[in-house]
């Protein structure tokens, strides 16, 4: 019997269709109802953010001093703020910035972390000790206070090719990325250390595969499951951090709205317009909760052993 014959036999024996990796994960993910709900909410939020210029009822930056601090009215469904700007429209445009910051910080931070972690774990020796020392050093820097200082001193820096209104967004993304890569780096370093000693890596080396290719094609794909989970949880976390910094006034600068800086002035009007505090915070909370649910669902779906 030849190999070809065996193959034909095997195909005849196969009764159910082979499932792709993606379908397996999707089938498991679907069972997690809350994760599914989270995904739907995130989908909705992203659509609102993308379509904001089309669906927003008003200009988010238009100041109307006559219509200050209005409660909900037929014209302004969620009322107006202290400068008479429409809260609903601002919420929609804020979604763009908040989600953009959340996604881009996570993608850049994960990429940087994965890169540094993989190099440290794979090459070991002095490369690893230098990178680990650097990682330790970054971890001793005080988190929130440092972010506040960075936000403060870099607030006025102008970035080439970026309009003034958005330069604080770019700066915030850079700050959060440069202070947020340590988690994924540590994670990937650990994964690579254990993968490195396995037989398939040895086999690759024996076949003469280059170090770079081993890292890109074998190490990182094998460590992908926990990276995806940590990234999903990370988006939610980054949105909360961004909103916190913007709330304190050290993040995205007004008038560019984000969910965080919309809450900046609510305390002054707590007596007259308490409703202003509700929706921006609700948006942050719902988004962060959705990403947490989705991350949890992905963890179950991608790797049942990772169960926490």
């Amino acid at each position: 019997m030849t190999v070809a014959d065996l193959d034909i036999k095997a195909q005849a024996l196969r009764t159910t269709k082979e499932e792709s990796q993606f379908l397996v994960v999707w089938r498991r993910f679907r069972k997690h109802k809350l994760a599914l709900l989270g995904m739907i909410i995130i989908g909705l939020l992203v659509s609102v953010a993308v379509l904001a210029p089309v669906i927003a009822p008003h200009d988010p930056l238009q100041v109307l001093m006559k219509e200050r601090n209005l409660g909900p009215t037929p014209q302004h469904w969620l009322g107006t703020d202290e400068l008479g700007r429409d809260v609903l429209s601002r919420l929609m445009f804020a979604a763009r910035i908040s989600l953009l910051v959340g996604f881009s910080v996570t993608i850049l931070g994960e990429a940087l972390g994965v890169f540094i972690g993989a190099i440290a774990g794979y090459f070991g020796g002095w490369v690893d000790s230098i990178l680990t020392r650097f990682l330790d050093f970054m971890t001793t820097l005080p988190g929130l206070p440092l972010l506040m200082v960075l936000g403060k001193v870099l607030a006025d820096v102008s970035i080439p090719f970026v309009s003034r209104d958005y330069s604080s967004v770019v700066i915030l993304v850079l700050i959060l990325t440069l202070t947020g890569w340590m988690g994924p780096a540590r994670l990937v370093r650990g994964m690579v250390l254990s993968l490195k000693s396995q037989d398939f890596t040895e086999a690759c080396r024996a076949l003469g595969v280059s170090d770079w290719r081993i890292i890109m094609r074998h190490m990182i794909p094998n460590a992908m499951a926990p990276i995806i989970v940590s990234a999903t949880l990370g988006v939610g976390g980054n949105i909360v951090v961004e909103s916190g910094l913007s709330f304190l006034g050290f993040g995205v600068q007004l008038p560019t709205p984000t969910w965080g800086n919309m809450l900046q002035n609510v305390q002054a009007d707590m007596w007259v317009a308490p409703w202003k505090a509700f929706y921006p915070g609700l948006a942050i909370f719902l988004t962060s909760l959705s990403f947490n649910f989705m991350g949890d669902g992905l963890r179950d779906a991608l790797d049942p052993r990772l169960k926490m």
Partner: protein
Amino acid sequence: MTTYMIRRALQMILVLLLSTIFIYALLNLANPDGPLSGLKLATGKQRMSDNDIANMARILGIDKPFTLRYVTWLLGDDWLFGPWAKYKGTSKGLLRGDWGTSWALAKGQPVIMLFESRIWNTILLMGTSTLLSVLIAVPVGVYSAVKQYSKLDYFVTSFTFFGIAMPVFWFGLLMIILFAYKFREWGLPYLPPGDVVSLRGPDAGSLLDRIKHLIMPTIALSLLNMAGWTRYTRSAMLEVLRQDYVRTARAKGLIERIVITKHALRNGLIPLVTIIVFSIAGIFSGAIMTETVFNWKGLGRLYYEGLMRDDWPLTMAYLFIQAVLVVVASLTIEFLYTVVDPRIRYS
């Protein structure tokens, strides 16, 4: 072991030095004029003469070149000699206990006095909140792990999701609206919206008044800790309960309560040591958000105000102490681990 710890301590001192250089450079190179930048921008009658500005710079000690500024900030300028003698002053430097004087927030006040006036408020808030969080999180986490998949477990797990996703400042704002404003509007007993203690009123400064002010900030601060620590305890306990020695303990006929409390809990709580030590180290920064929302006059609020007003000496001293605390905490954890888990050996 001892040599290992000494080596680690020396490494950490180096790390600290690096991080002070980093932070100092960041503040002083990005905005070298500090509060003077505003004066320099002013025009017309508002404008001070260049001479006056130069004098101000000398008084604030920011006329020196950057490297010298850093060295004198760390070691003081009362020993300067030779080419630097003209910068000689009276400051003793951070390492010799002189944290400088505030530039803007409380002009001329020693920074250390500002810290002393605020630290007890922070300790009160952080202490109450940490205690409350541990007292609730540990038993709930353990119970939830022991009764995995029960109704209570589902409830607890969902609660941790809410707690972790909740932005502290928004939760604080909502509480203020409900318990301070709405309750007052509805004629119910209400809580003060902020501050540590009332300035006026019949019971200003009394114990009851202080407790009333403490309630909302403590709940806001505890929510995140409670959620995180409950989840941590639960997963640590689940891990331990699967171990062979727990099965052995059950197999030899011990009652469940002893198995849990004597055998499982001891090992399950080791990771919690890390969290609690770091939470103590977080005394400076852990409450920035909460203190800002509730106008709680503690260190976090002090830092926020100092940073807003370009008060570099205050900001620098704060960041330095924060870094020292984190370093001390990580050394303490390494040490504590060898005590609670004899299997861990450093060499």
